[in-house]
């Protein structure tokens, strides 16, 4: 059963290759169904391997399958091999599961788009890369997947590249990721230099043997990579812009899977983090906490339905890093899973809304849509309550676990982190409720909308925001309408998962800590123990619930009852002008720095190399004149030599 682990990435790879060759011929909807079936097949294979792992006792739950030797160079040996252990299979399960649902949704969403087959080519390639990332048994293979998902993210964000804004967003994502990748690469080099291997099992076993400072460096550098990929401060600027891509892309890549790769990486190398100095995990926790808070505040003032969810994603990822930093790896993974469910649900629901209103993404032009999109509305509510942290939905359990762990991590730092997390939860409840009220409740504000762009189904270059679902050519009269079953089915499935997902790790009694026991072989040693009395834990739960309800109440007062004036400060709407700042820096002093570096490279380094050549050629040019062709000069040389030889012999005589 465990031998089937190679099938997991192989099926999406096959799908990618087939679609690459025959995608155009299969066309719509064949290409989409093929991709979905491949992804679903991968999910089945994952279930098989999962079953195989369950059959083993807890300590033996790691299976390595090496396909072939990839890089045998000197002492470096990098294989293409898969490590099937609880952590990787958990990731693979929800990547393929949620991925399959999103593929299905996309068949409906991308209906009528001329790039339909190309879309699924990229989607399958993405699933393949993501699976290589999580299943790889060494840092280099993970990096392969890391780069692969980055590339697919670029392809998919700038899917409608006819509009330059989309292409720029794709480039921005890729370049910002690259900054993080630099850290990842350095970490790989350092790991090989210090430990002689890049294999996870070997690295994690031998983490204690290598110098603490090296482990610290590796951990810090890997975190730099994670910051880029998982959109934490200061490298989060690409994620809001990435919303220019089709909504299924936002759901899959920028909510459920790619952005969680950073959290996965940190969890995977938890022995390295434990073996380094204390300040690295502290930094991770604080970066996560600050990011969560800042992103949540920005989300209050966003008017684009997808941008709110983008900043929400950044905020929730901050929670996960907070958990990783304090050592609560189980809580981080738990929140990753529930987040995958409810965030994908929210994004797909948003896509359904956008499709329903004919392409407009501005929430100020929506309202009262619950009458027109009932299924979307119902599932969206589930997602909303989940992310806001209202029991019994899954989001509550996972977020509470993080907060409890923060409190339990002790000392002033623990309490501070808990406080930040709590405030963020309050703000999260607030802005999500705001979104729900603006979109689904109240009066239709379609008259505030600008005239909708011409519904030309053929043109791909229709404005980015509106091009989302403009090409379905129903010929309807602009009345919002519910999406077809192919889009609402995944919504319903995800809603069910978001509801029951909390059961993975309920805090009542050790038996219910299913996820914790499951992940024990991977993170058990370095997991933060929760030494809190039952009363403390109960109190924390109550506080969290109260805070969530307060947030919802506040939003109700502002946006539903209209009793309090809505305050959406400009600075938040512009995300603290961070983006503009970065642009100004890179365009101004940044460019000068880069030009300086380029000048140095061209003149000093190249100058040294060219200088050697110049010196030699100059020397030769001058030496050339010795051979003048004048025989009398040569004769003079000969005669001078005679004199010299004579003189030499004279010195040898005894007078």
């Amino acid at each position, binding site marked *: 059963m465990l031998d089937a682990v190679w099938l997991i990435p192989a099926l999406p790879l096959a799908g990618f290759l087939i679609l690459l060759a025959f995608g155009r011929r299969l066309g719509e909807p064949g290409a989409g169904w093929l991709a979905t079936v491949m992804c679903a097949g991968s999910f089945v294979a994952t279930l098989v391997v999962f079953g195989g792992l369950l059959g083993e006792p807890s300590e033996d739950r790691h299976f390595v399958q090496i396909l072939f030797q990839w890089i045998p160079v000197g002492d470096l040996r990098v294989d293409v091999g898969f490590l099937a252990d609880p952590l990787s299979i958990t990731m693979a399960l929800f990547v393929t599961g949620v991925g399959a649902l999103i593929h299905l949704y996309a068949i409906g969403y991308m209906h009528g788009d001329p790039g339909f087959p190309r879309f699924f080519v990229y989607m399958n390639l993405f699933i393949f890369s993501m699976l290589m990332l999580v299943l790889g048994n060494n840092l280099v293979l993970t990096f392969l997947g890391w780069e692969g998902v980055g590339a697919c993210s670029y392809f998919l964000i700038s899917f409608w590249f006819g509009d330059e804004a989309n292409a720029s967003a794709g480039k921005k994502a890729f370049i910002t990721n690259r900054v993080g990748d630099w850290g990842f690469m350095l970490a790989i080099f350092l790991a090989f230099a210090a430990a002689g291997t890049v294999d996870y099992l070997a690295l994690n076993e031998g983490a204690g043997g290598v110098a603490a400072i090296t482990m610290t460096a590796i951990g810090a550098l890997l975190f730099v990579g994670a910051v880029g990929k998982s959109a934490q401060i200061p490298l989060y600027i690409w994620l809001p812009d990435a919303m220019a891509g089709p909504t299924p892309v936002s759901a899959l890549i920028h909510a459920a899977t790619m952005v969680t790769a950073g959290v996965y990486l940190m969890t995977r190398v938890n022995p390295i983090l434990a073996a380094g100095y204390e300040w690295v995990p502290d930094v991770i926790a604080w970066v996560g906490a600050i990011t969560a808070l800042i992103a949540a505040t920005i989300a209050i003032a966003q008017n684009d339905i997808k941008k709110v969810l983008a900043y929400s994603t950044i905020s929730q990822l901050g929670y996960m890093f907070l958990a990783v930093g304090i050592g609560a790896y189980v809580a981080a993974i738990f929140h990753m899973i529930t987040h995958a469910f409810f965030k994908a649900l929210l994004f797909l629901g948003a896509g359904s809304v956008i499709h329903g209103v004919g392409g407009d993404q501005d929430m100020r032009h929506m309202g009262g849509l619950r009458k027109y999109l009932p299924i979307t509305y119902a599932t969206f509510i589930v997602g909303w309550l989940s992310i806001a942290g209202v029991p019994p939905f899954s989001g509550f359990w996972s977020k509470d676990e993080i907060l409890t762990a923060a409190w339990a991590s002790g000392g002033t730092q623990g309490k501070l982190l808990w406080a930040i997390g709590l405030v963020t939860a309050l703000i999260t409840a607030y802005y999500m409720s705001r979104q729900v009220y603006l979109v689904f409740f109240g009066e239709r504000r379609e008259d505030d909308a600008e005239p909708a762009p011409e519904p030309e189904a053929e043109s791909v270059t229709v404005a980015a925001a509106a091009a989302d679902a403009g090409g379905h050519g129903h010929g309807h009269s602009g009345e919002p309408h519910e999406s077809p079953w192919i889009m609402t089915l995944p919504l319903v499935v995800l809603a069910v998962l978001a509801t029951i997902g909390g059961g993975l790790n309920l805090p009542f009694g050790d038996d219910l800590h299913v996820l914790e026991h499951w992940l024990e072989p991977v993170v058990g040693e370095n997991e933060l123990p929760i030494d809190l009395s039952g009363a403390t834990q109960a109190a924390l739960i109550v506080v969290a619930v109260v805070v969530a309800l307060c947030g919802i109440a506040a939003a109700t007062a502002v946006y539903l009852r209209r009793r309090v004036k809505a305050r959406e400060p400009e600075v938040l709407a512009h995300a603290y002008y961070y983006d503009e700042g970065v642009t100004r820096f890179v365009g101004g002093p940044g460019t000068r720095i880069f030009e300086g570096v380029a000048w140095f490279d061209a003149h000093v380094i190249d100058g040294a190399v060219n200088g050697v050549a110049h010196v030699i050629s100059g020397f030769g040019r001058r030496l050339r004149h010795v*051979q003048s*062709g*004048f*025989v009398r000069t040569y*004769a003079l040389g000969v*005669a001078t030599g005679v004199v010299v030889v004579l003189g030499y012999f004279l010195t040898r005589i005894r007078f």
Partner: protein
Amino acid sequence: MIAALDVTPGWYLVLGSLLFSIGAFGLLVRRNPLVMFMCVELMLNAVTLTFVTFSRMLEDTGGQSVVVFVLVVAAAEVVVGLAIIVALLHKRPDATADDVALLEG
């Protein structure tokens, strides 16, 4: 007086070195190929004089034999050298040793 001076073989040697250096100087300074050749003959003669002197000093006939060979070789050298000069100067009657530099590529 001067009659007291004896002509020792050393004088011949000094004369030989004098002739040789004059010949060397001439070879380096003159440009006309024929005159350069004559300077070479001058140097060769200085050498033969020295050889004969040493032959007398060491009472070795080998020195005189060498002179014979030097003579033969000098003759052969002159023959070939002059043939070359003739071939060269037919085309350019005013060629000098410096013009050999024109031969380079």
